[in-house]
């Protein structure tokens, strides 16, 4: 019986300590030290919040760089991957659909030169980044639609590229919203 009472007390005390005090203190200190990150890395344009730098949003117009295909259509309150297995015929259907879309938007590209991340859906459905090859393939389309020069956009991709951490870890990639915010600001001028 003493053990039951003690268990009840331990359950309650630790619930308050670990389930309430700990996250609240992290919230307080976190928001004090890193207010931008703690609120979700929200980006503004002309004073209004237009999205999170970390969360992919749907870009369909030709004048923007497009994010990776999303199994949930960029629903940021319902993340998910496609969960299609490697021998599922639905996977082939999905990817060939994406290839057709890429070709329709960007003109004739040989299948072999389409990077995998451009036509295969991301894990979260919200991948904010694309590979450099993916970004470069989109440059002619964006240039044509916006009137910005291709060399400017190439410089832009190079400038926004996030390289390997310490030159070793990860793959070079570029954030789609970063690119598009620059494009948008340039056009606004």
């Amino acid at each position, binding site marked *: 019986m003493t*053990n039951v009472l003690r268990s009840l007390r331990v359950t309650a005390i630790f619930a308050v300590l670990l389930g309430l005090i700990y996250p609240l203190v992290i919230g307080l200190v976190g*928001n004090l030290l890193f207010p931008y990150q703690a609120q*979700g890395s929200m980006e503004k344009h002309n004073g209004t919040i237009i999205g999170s730098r970390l*969360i992919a949003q749907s*870009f369909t117009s030709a004048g923007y760089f497009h994010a990776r295909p999303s199994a949930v259509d960029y629903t940021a309150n319902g993340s*998910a991957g496609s969960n299609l297995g*490697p*021998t599922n015929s639905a996977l082939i259907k999905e990817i060939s659909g994406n290839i057709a879309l890429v070709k329709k938007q960007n003109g004739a590209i040989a299948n072999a030169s389409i990077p995998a991340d451009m036509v295969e859906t991301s894990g979260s459905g919200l991948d904010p980044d694309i590979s450099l090859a993916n970004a470069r393939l989109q440059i002619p389309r964006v240039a044509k639609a916006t009137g910005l020069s291709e060399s400017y956009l190439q410089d832009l991709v190079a400038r926004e590229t996030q390289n390997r951490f310490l030159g070793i870890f990860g793959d070079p990639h570029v954030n789609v919203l970063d690119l598009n915010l620059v494009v948008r600001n340039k056009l606004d001028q």
Partner: protein
Amino acid sequence: MTWLGIIQILLVLGIVLLVAIPLGGYLYRVFSGQRSWLERVYAPCEKVLYKLSGINPTVEMDWKAYIKPLLLVNFIMMLFVYLILRLQGHLPLNPDHIPSMPWDLAFNTAASFITNTNWQNYAGESTLSYLSQTMAITYLQFTSAATGLVAVIAFLRGLVGKRAKMFGNFWVDFVKVHTRLLLPAAFILALVFVGLGLPQTFSGAQTVHTLQGASQTISRGPIASLEAIKQLGTNGGGFMNANSAHPFENPNVITNILEIIAMAVIPTALIFTFGRFLKKRRQAVILYVFLVAMMLLGTLLVYWSETSGNPILHKVLGISNVSMEGKEVRFGLPLDSLFVGATTAFTTGAVNLMHDSLTPLGGFVPMLFMMLNMVFGGKGVGLLNIIMYLIITVFIAGLMVGRTPEIFGKKIEAREIKLATLTLLIHPFLILFASAIALVTKTGVASIANPGLHGFSEILYAFSSAAANNGSAFGGLSGNTPFYNIMLGVVMLLGRYISIVAMFAIAGSLIRKPVVPESAGTLRTDTFAFGGVFAAIALIVGALTFFPALALGPIAEHLQMWSGVLSK
């Protein structure tokens, strides 16, 4: 597969080792009652907690007195969390107005988190209130890790102890794991996570107007505090449905590396704590070498398989051969592969890519690691499984060379072997029996998402994950049905507690035995030869038990994929 990729994997494992060795010593000092240099901070805090909970820290316990409160407090915490989930719709801290959970899902979730499994039949962002994310999920991510840790610590005390009441005091250990390890570590890691981009807020979802003028609702919440203990406690249950593939849970390659290190470091450190308790550093080194070799081989197999990609896509569509389905760009395939290997070897269950979309051999490795359940293993219980395999190895090796089997100076006799065998067999029994039931029932098969052999793998993966208390999934399987909620919940509970109780009973009987002094006739367990036998027995026992199931699932699918046949 590139050299740079292999270097990435080796470097991260190297960092894990560099942190784990001193941490192993630290854990030994904490649990052998030595003073810490922060004693003046820790001791008063612990005193308050003892006083509030009515704990008498001077009581010494035997194995039964230790395990009773362990089971009892686990049961009450599970009940508490079940109630929170059932009532969350009426409780505070619910800015997104999420309704209460139905009973079967609440049972599954409570069972999942109390057992350190973190199997999730729900999507966190749309099914849990902030109160549930903190007071149910984050809370149990601490206490279930603590439970596993104190269990193995008490077992080690039993292994080297000389009197029945030398298991220590459950309550004291439970408090100290929190004050001296998990809370300070999680606190620092969570703040680092916020700095690196993980949100920590109690404001509800943010609705934004995108650059293109559409509206997007972005879920967020107290993520960093959960993420820290999710990894440190080898829990793995994510705040979001996409888990560590979600950019809010794992925004860049640095957080990805930190998450791998966080999940790996305590189970690795425990190997060295084990060596300190035995006063045999060599034993720890031998174990580490063989375990890390298994883990590395598995990781490289995933890496090779994912970079070789899907030949069907190559043949039919002619696109680049790397597989990116279900993966995120920012981590890169080498660290993706290490994450897959680590999350199942250390039985965390966090995923930074969708395992269901892995190539067949890429999915084979995590399944195998969960079936072996001893490649480091989860918080504490992993080491218990390793010791169980050591006992089996000593027994078989002893029979082969004609010596009385003994381990660490204690004779292994019928009772210990029976209990070790029970622990050994319960795991495949739970996985295979439950998978068989699911496969012969209509409701079990109806949840399968992918056709053909891959659908079989989805079910096999689910029960391997539940029995190993891992929590990762082939996520296509619709687990949120009464059938799977109950089946998986029961398998998780049995998989956790039967082996803990059986291993405690072994320690309880070992502690009463006289120590046999080491002689020329002793079978040494700290040699590479013994380590090789240990690894071979683990693999043979694992392979023999699971080979038919693995052959039907990932192995057959691998052959299918390379012969270019699709399932419809």
